[in-house]
């Protein structure tokens, strides 16, 4: 079995400033890999480079053993899809859910639009009554489900998740995370998820990499993290921070 995603020596610069330096990681098919780090550590930039939305990268990215270039073709997007951070910004404000979901099918000339749209809505547990609503008529959690449905309608192998829950209410976060975990298991998807929240990563990913100042300082399994085996100072910091936040939250409850 070939490695699903292989990123080696990934460097990304914006107008001369190196934001990501020499990041390398592999993701196996069906695996779920998390990238954790503070804001500005370059984690989202890595994800956008993987998605082909950022064209200022150097190094090498392979999907399923095939090297990809700066521009991606249509077949690439039938394999790789992305869920964005902000569900209020990632859905076209003047298009109905139906239109948003069917765009991929229209572009790629895939038939049975009605059936596929309804199935995608069912997949993310949305009632079919939302199909002809506009995004502003939906709640944040429902919008993020629509965004996930939009990614799923391409029947991808890889789903790139850019902080998919950080813009949502705490109670809705768990719902969306469980949905993502369930979908991965059911559809055999490969995930790369970016988050600043270690608990979210630990919930969904078996393996993770910690980033600081554009460098991936450590890669370890969630199990090793739970057993307090993190080596790098920054990872330990993130762990301590998330533990102290949990105590604060517990105290608040």
């Amino acid at each position: 079995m070939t490695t699903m995603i292989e990123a080696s020596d990934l460097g990304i610069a914006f107008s001369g400033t190196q934001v990501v330096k020499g990041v390398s990681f592999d993701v196996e098919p069906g695996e779920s890999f998390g990238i954790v780090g503070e804001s500005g550590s370059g984690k989202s930039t890595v994800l956008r480079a993987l998605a082909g939305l950022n064209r200022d990268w150097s190094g090498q990215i392979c999907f399923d053993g095939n090297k990809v270039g700066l521009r991606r073709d249509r077949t690439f997007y039938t394999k790789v899809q992305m869920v964005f951070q902000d569900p209020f910004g990632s859905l076209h404000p003047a298009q109905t859910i139906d239109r948003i979901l069917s765009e991929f099918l229209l572009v790629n000339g895939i038939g049975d639009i009605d059936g596929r749209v309804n199935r995608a809505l069912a997949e993310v547990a949305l009632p079919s009554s939302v199909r002809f609503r506009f995004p502003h008529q939906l709640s944040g959690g429902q919008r993020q489900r629509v965004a996930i449905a939009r990614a799923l309608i391409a029947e991808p192998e890889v789903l790139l998740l850019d902080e998919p829950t950080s813009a949502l209410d705490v109670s809705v976060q768990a719902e969306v995370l469980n949905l993502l975990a369930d979908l991965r298991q059911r559809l055999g998807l490969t995930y790369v998820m970016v988050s600043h929240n270690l608990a979210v990563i630990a919930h969904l990913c078996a393996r993770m990499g910690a980033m600081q100042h554009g460098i991936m300082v450590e890669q370890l399994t969630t199990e090793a993290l739970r057993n307090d085996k993190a080596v790098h100072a920054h990872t330990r910091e993130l762990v301590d921070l998330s533990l102290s936040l949990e105590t604060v939250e517990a105290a608040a409850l």
Partner: protein
Amino acid sequence: MLADFRRWALNDDAGSRRQAAWGRRYRIWLALKGNPLAMLGLAIILACVVLAALAPVLAPYDPTVQELTDRLAKPSAAHLLGTDELGRDILSRLLYGGRVTLGMVIAVVVLVAPLGLAVGTVAGFFGGWVDTCLMRVTDVFLAFPRLILALAFVAALSPGVESTILAIALTAWPPYARIARAETLTIRHADFIEAAAMTGASPWRIVARHVAPLCVPSLIVRVTLDMSSIIITAASLGFLGMGAQPPSPEWGAMIATAKRFILDQYWVALAPCVAILMISLAFNFLGDGLRDVLDPKQS
């Protein structure tokens, strides 16, 4: 019937694309209906359009028939708005003139709005040298005084309605391109545009189907507000003798011929002046109302 439509359109659980689209339109209409000035503007515009369309039925006289024995007659029962210097009925000329003037305005808008939208969205979306080239061309057109450029253009061709339309269109599109470009720049890097790119859609499709629709509301507002200045430019060209040619009853040309006896026989110039004033005001009212309803930044 109406109540049925209302319930159908306002249903949150729309069952089809058509229903969702009508629901959206109906909500905009409801919001517009709540603005009395905008409704007044809309009523005046509709009235003018209907009057102009029905001119052959409504006009008491042929607008080009001269009756030299009855020239410069005061408003009376026979000639409600009086007659001009060749004894032609002013009311009839006003009604027929509405066709010419409104027709010119509509033709200009049909030419200008899509052109500005296309230039602006393409420049804004593609950026780089495409943007530089398109915007410098726009700047050149913006730098010319509008009326002078239109005059030069009409003079280079032959004076007439078609040249007037082309001349005004030529000078009117740059602001639309600028607005469309500014709108495009604000949404170019939005996540929903990136998401559209991730369907594998071509940049042209993204511009046409995802970017342009979001620029349309502000263009509609701008077009409505510009209508009055288009009418005035058309009238000015007519006034200067470069617009519609006699005996065609264009409003600006009517004022131009009446200027010789504006002090003694004021009613000859008054009627077209009031007509231009009314329709310009109406378009401004409607434009203001539409801005409140359509501006995407407020919803």
